[in-house]
């Protein structure tokens, strides 16, 4: 990004403003549509401003890991396909895509969102495998929050396709918690939430905080080649808990 654009954004922030007129802790408009992909067992399209992410969930029987013989398995993958940004390239996920997938996975896993023991079919032999596939369509910033929201929304509306495998009737995937990721960047003294692409590139360091329904923290990730003060961390955590609650109430009520 041109230096002049960076300076402009910095000066705006000094004046307490953002290029698109949002407050520092204000999210872009969120549109969430579930069930668009009939061939998936659960799906969600998230629009976060102009950022667009499609998440598909597929559920299939498979073998458990040998150290958790009575638990279902979650496999999360993120595809930063070159359709979504001039900076994405074809090929297997690079470290940005891998980090994204792993942070989305961390939120789902560590919050205990999925009752994995309820996904055991035959101990040690067969369990349900949950594939969470994040497909980025348009990267206009803050993929972490958009992808995490898509993942939990797709999971909450997913059905276990038991009938298809002769394993009884289909039933809703048992979801026990609702993790929500909230990402912010530090800009001098200011903390800005839901950064767009420009803001991400100026600030160069993000902090993502994933919170659970009871207000606990179940995942964090500092991302980017800069540093962050401890004070900023705690301020971000405080606001993240609030924002997550709003998002949960607005979009993820069961």
């Amino acid at each position: 990004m041109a230096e002049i654009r960076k300076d402009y954004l910095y000066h705006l922030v000094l004046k307490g403003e953002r290029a698109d007129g949002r407050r520092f802790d204000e999210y872009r408009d969120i549109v969430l549509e579930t069930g668009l992909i009939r061939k998936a067992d659960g799906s969600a399209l998230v629009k976060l401003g102009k950022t667009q992410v499609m998440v598909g969930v597929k559920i299939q029987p498979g073998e458990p890991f040998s150290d958790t013989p009575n638990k279902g398995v979650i496999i999360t993958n993120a595809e930063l396909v070159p359709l979504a940004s001039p900076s994405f390239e074809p090929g297997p996920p690079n470290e940005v895509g891998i980090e994204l997938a792993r942070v989305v996975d961390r939120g789902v896993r560590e919050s205990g969102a999925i009752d994995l023991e309820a996904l055991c079919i035959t101990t040690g032999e067969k369990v349900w495998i949950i594939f969470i596939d994040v497909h980025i369509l348009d990267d206009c910033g803050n993929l972490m929050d958009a992808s995490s929201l898509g993942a939990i929304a797709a999971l909450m509306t997913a059905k276990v396709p038991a009938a298809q495998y002769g394993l009884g009737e289909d039933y809703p995937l048992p979801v026990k918690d609702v993790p929500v990721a909230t990402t912010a960047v530090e800009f001098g003294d200011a903390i800005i939430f839901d950064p767009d692409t420009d803001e991400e590139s100026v600030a160069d360091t993000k902090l993502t905080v994933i919170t659970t329904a009871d207000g606990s923290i179940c995942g964090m990730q500092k991302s980017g080649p800069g540093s962050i003060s401890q004070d900023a961390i705690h301020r971000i955590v405080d606001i993240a808990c609030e924002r997550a609650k709003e998002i949960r109430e607005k979009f993820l009520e069961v």
Partner: protein
Amino acid sequence: MIGMDEKLSFFKDGVRLDGRRSDELRPIKIEVGVLARADGSCYMEMGDNRVIAAVYGPREVHPRHLQEVTRAIVRYRYNMASFSVEERKRPGPDRRSNEVSKVSREALEPVVLTSYFPKSVVDIFVEVLQADAGTRTAGINAASVALADAGIPMKSLISSCAAGKVDGEIVLDPMKIEDNLGEADVPIAMTPGGDITLLQMDGRLTKDELKRAVDLAKAGCRQIYEIQRKVLVDRYSHMEPEICDEAVAMAGEEI
């Protein structure tokens, strides 16, 4: 392509299982300019198929040694999302998608004016979000509109659809079950002027059936072309005259 046990009738009271006549396309929905980052983009539904196409370019070629001195190169990447099919697909290209990418690129190259942009590349990316037979034709249709949306100079649009044979009858635009259990599939793509830029066939057809299949698929392409054209005209008629003129001209001049 059909086993005895799976024999079922594809026609009931003279219409197909989804209520279509033999020469009828599935419902089509096209939206143009759906992505912010891409230079041009298009979302398309053809029946239960859902695809998005994006175009980037003309832009610099990496790696350099792929550059052509006298013209732009065209690249096309057809990719299926893992969740787009019944059984989860492993991410990344497989042999089928490699072949589809090649023939799709070769379906569009004949109309792209590559000599306008030497040493550069026009990148076309097609993501299949849901597949139900005909994704390669849907992808080509969407890519053609996305190219126009990106302002890439073209001789004309390209329109694409398939004909098939089921229960001994030639039908237009086979859906999944017709494709899986039918006797033949003939996807084509063509210019508004009728030049064929994609032609594949599998199954089993007599020479005469092949002719009827190509004729029927061409008729389908003509219908799709009208829809593509309308979408572009609608989008650009609200714009400043010169942009509009150019896009509409491209969409229309050859029909």
